């Protein structure tokens, strides 16, 4: 149906006519809902939006959005999306991926997309498990995790997608949680406003194979003590009455402060030149420290697709060559 371009769309307009087929109770539903709401708020146009995914539960996402969508192959969504964005920088291109898709099989494309700073928005659904293949451990599963493929517990060390994105030179790196709708929507909007690659890790509950993976810090009863929201320009405080904070010692080791020490709490600067504070927060031990959500890092850097197309436009400007001149270039000779 051709829509009148000027009308501001509602959340409902972003829903496709396809039945959503995630397991009932899956965290993906709330993410879909938040994205649709955020897109409507942002005044996005259906035909200018392209959603590209890889393989996994999360990667079914494009089918449920009434935008352009391409459900590609395992781990390769950032590469396909890079081709789309380079070919048409005016398109609003979103990548939907998961911890298996982006951190395991597609790890290489993930880091190189960060490094290039392609103007893509990446939503990484991290449920710390392989859902679509029915319950094997993932690169973000904690050591000791008992799954179908690790009956005696995983001996792998997990890594943090945030730390990986920071290490790869990511220019916008953030985290949210599936059930925190308003925070998630604000992160989607912040990502949208960033020109370069924006990655938002979304902690997502898989209620079938890894139910409650985040419960120990997302549950309402413990949330205020176990999570910390990063707010640009504000000290790192948490607790029901914001009575606790995080400070760094001279070796950049974080420690928790309370009472008189509260004034030592580190003032968060998401735009800091050094990635060190963000990296320190991304790698804090979850058992000891609160889990940070919000924007870890934001940097302005030239967009890859702009730099590429600038060279093309420049070359076109300084050198016009007909096809005939191209073919007949170099040393030619006549035979009569």
């Amino acid at each position, binding site marked *: *149906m*051709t*829509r009148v371009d000027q009308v501001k769309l509602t959340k409902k307009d972003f829903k*496709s006519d*396809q039945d959503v087929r995630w397991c009932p109770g899956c965290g993906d539903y709330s993410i879909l809902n938040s994205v649709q709401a955020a897109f409507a708020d942002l005044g996005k146009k259906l*035909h*200018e939006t*392209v959603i*590209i995914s890889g393989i996994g539960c999360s990667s079914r996402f*494009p*089918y449920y*959005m*009434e935008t*352009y*969508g*391409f*459900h*590609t*192959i*395992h781990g*390769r969504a*950032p*590469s*396909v*999306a*890079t*081709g*789309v*964005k*380079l*070919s*048409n920088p005016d*398109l609003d291109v979103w990548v939907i991926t998961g911890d298996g898709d982006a951190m395991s099989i597609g790890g*290489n*494309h993930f880091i*190189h997309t960060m490094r290039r700073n392609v103007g893509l928005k990446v939503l990484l659904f991290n449920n710390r498990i392989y859902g679509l293949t029915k319950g094997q451990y993932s690169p973000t599963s904690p050591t000791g995790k008992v799954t179908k493929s690790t009956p005696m517990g995983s001996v792998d060390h997990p890594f943090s997608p945030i730390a990986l994105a920071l290490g790869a030179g990511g220019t916008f790196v953030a985290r949210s949680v599936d059930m925190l709708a308003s925070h998630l929507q604000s992160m989607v909007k912040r990502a949208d406003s960033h020109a370069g690659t924006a990655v938002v890790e979304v902690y997502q509950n898989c209620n079938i194979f890894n139910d409650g993976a985040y419960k120990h810090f997302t549950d309402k009863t413990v949330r205020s003590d176990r999570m910390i929201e990063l707010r640009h320009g504000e000290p790192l405080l948490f607790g029901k009455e914001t009575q606790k904070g995080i400070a760094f010692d001279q070796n950049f080791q974080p420690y928790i402060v309370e009472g008189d020490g509260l004034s030592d709490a580190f003032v968060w600067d998401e735009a800091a030149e050094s990635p060190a504070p963000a990296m320190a927060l991304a790698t804090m031990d979850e058992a000891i420290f609160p889990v940070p959500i919000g924007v870890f890092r934001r940097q302005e850097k030239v967009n890859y697709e702009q730099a*590429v*197309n600038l*060279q*093309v436009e*420049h*070359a*076109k400007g*300084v*050198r*016009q*060559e*007909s*096809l*005939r001149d*191209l*073919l*007949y*270039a170099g*040393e*030619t*000779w*006549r*035979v*009569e």
Partner: protein
Amino acid sequence: MTGTETRDGSEGAASEPAIQQLDQVVIRFAGDSGDGMQLTGDQFTRTTALMGNDIATFPDFPAEIRAPAGTIPGVSAFQLRFSSFDIHTPGDAPDVLVAMNPAALKVHLPHLKKDGVLLLNSASFRSLDLKKAKYDVDPRTDETLDGYRVIEVDLAKRTKEALANSALDNRGKDRCKNMYALGILYWLFHRDVEPTEKAIAQKFAKRPEVVEANLTAMRAGHAYAETTEIFQTAYQVAPAKLASGTYRNIMGNQALCLGLVAASKQCGVPLFLGSYPITPASDILHQLSGYKHHGVVTFQAEDEIAAVCAAIGASYAGQIGLTSTSGPGVALKTEAMGLAIMAELPLVVLNVQRAGPSTGMPTKTQQADLLQAMYGRNGESPMVVIACSTPADAFEVGYEAIRIATKYMVPVMLLSDGYIANGSEPWRLPDVERLPPIEVSYASPDESGAKYAPYKRHPETLARPWAKPGTLGLVHRIGGLEKQDVTGDISYDPANHQHMVDTRAQKVANVADDLPALQPIGERSGDVLVLGWGSPRGAITAAVTRLQSDGHKVSAAFLRHLNPLPNDLEALMRGFKQVVLPELNKGQLAMVLRAKYLIDVRSLSQVNGQPFQSQVIEDFVRSVLKEVCE
């Protein structure tokens, strides 16, 4: 070398060499990887092309950038053949061998014709050099060189003397010795020095002392050959009588790039190349990255998979997505090609084949990726496969790949090989006005307001529409999951899957309805048809032409389209008592033809990393003729 000797009767004839007219010469330059043999061969080729000879070249170099100096693995060679008539191959055996060191002599002497000219750099026959080349005895002192016309020149010493006043250091001076050797050959074969003077001045424009030293060395070599009496004879090869037109010397990878750009211009759709460097395909990435002024975007990806996926993304966005690679890279791209087949997007995969399996011999040629191209994907995933057969032919085949990909909305695999990619020949330039049209149209919204149907097909070609994201009213989803025809919705319906598998196959098959008739060399019936695809074309043509002139009922035909095969192929094959198929693999196309047509195709297989020699094909066909004519 074949020709007649004429002695010039003018005054002072005693010191003047005889001028011998030849109709063709094969020269092979061989030396260490660092000796500049490729540059030397390239210069001789350019000069000779400009002098109007027909020419064919065969660079043969190691994969190592600099293997240990003076060793056998480090030997790099460049063979070229030039003539006063139309030729098809760089020749089987050289008439002249330039050997810069004992290792080059060891590797290439067995190929030199008896009585051939052997130019040796005597400076590099010290005992250590001999040891590196695994010579127990100096080959100049025993019977090894008997039967050749040996000319020894101390190139190192003479070059150094010639460059006494040069600003270069000793190492820099020594590196000019290839130019000294080139100067000698320019005199010997009556070549103009001017094109090389120009080319070297251009190549090293920022380093005038290098230009000066190289040209001084070349002129000194030329003067040395002229004034000393080491040669009793100099040779001339008259220009060839080629078809009228404007010519340019071209390498296969170059011509391929030009064909792609020409097709892109013709249909008005920009090219997007996603690529990862790999021998022998990297030059395609290099060359296309220089065509930004023609709107070409090149993306050097982090790996082969990202390269093809970005190309698929570009095609999805409405550009012509290309990816260039060689066999190992194709293996990595396999899953993504399946996606392009499923999503029914145009895509051109350029496979410049090399000797496999695995890493194999990266700089050596082979045609062993045909079955990989045709069948190397999971599921029923047919793909159009076409192949170029000569450096100049690569232009037309590049053009054809884009015509098919955009007309049928299919991925196309284009097979070239190392021999075509790096070989060169004179190319009669096409009339730009007469290039066949390529029309591309994108989907637009249905005026009735009906929902866009991404898999609603063209009634004849079965191509689905190409909808550019960004177009109002066409939002839709595609992907690797099976689709309901017309609507594009995900479908697990058995009847639909059967229909879609059949449809994807039919779409590829339909390409055959669109092909020109096969044009055999010779009659359409007879005793033996020599069928070829890809780079053996030259050797087959040479062999078949000789057999025909001996009165044999032998014809040759060449396949540009390998999947689907041309509709008239079967009838042509059935017109002969026997079909012979020389391939640089273990008989892959022969297997396909036997399976498809139940015709007893005789395979002539060669997998040694080298191109066919025409003599090998001729001998094989003669033996087959003996059988069928008994």
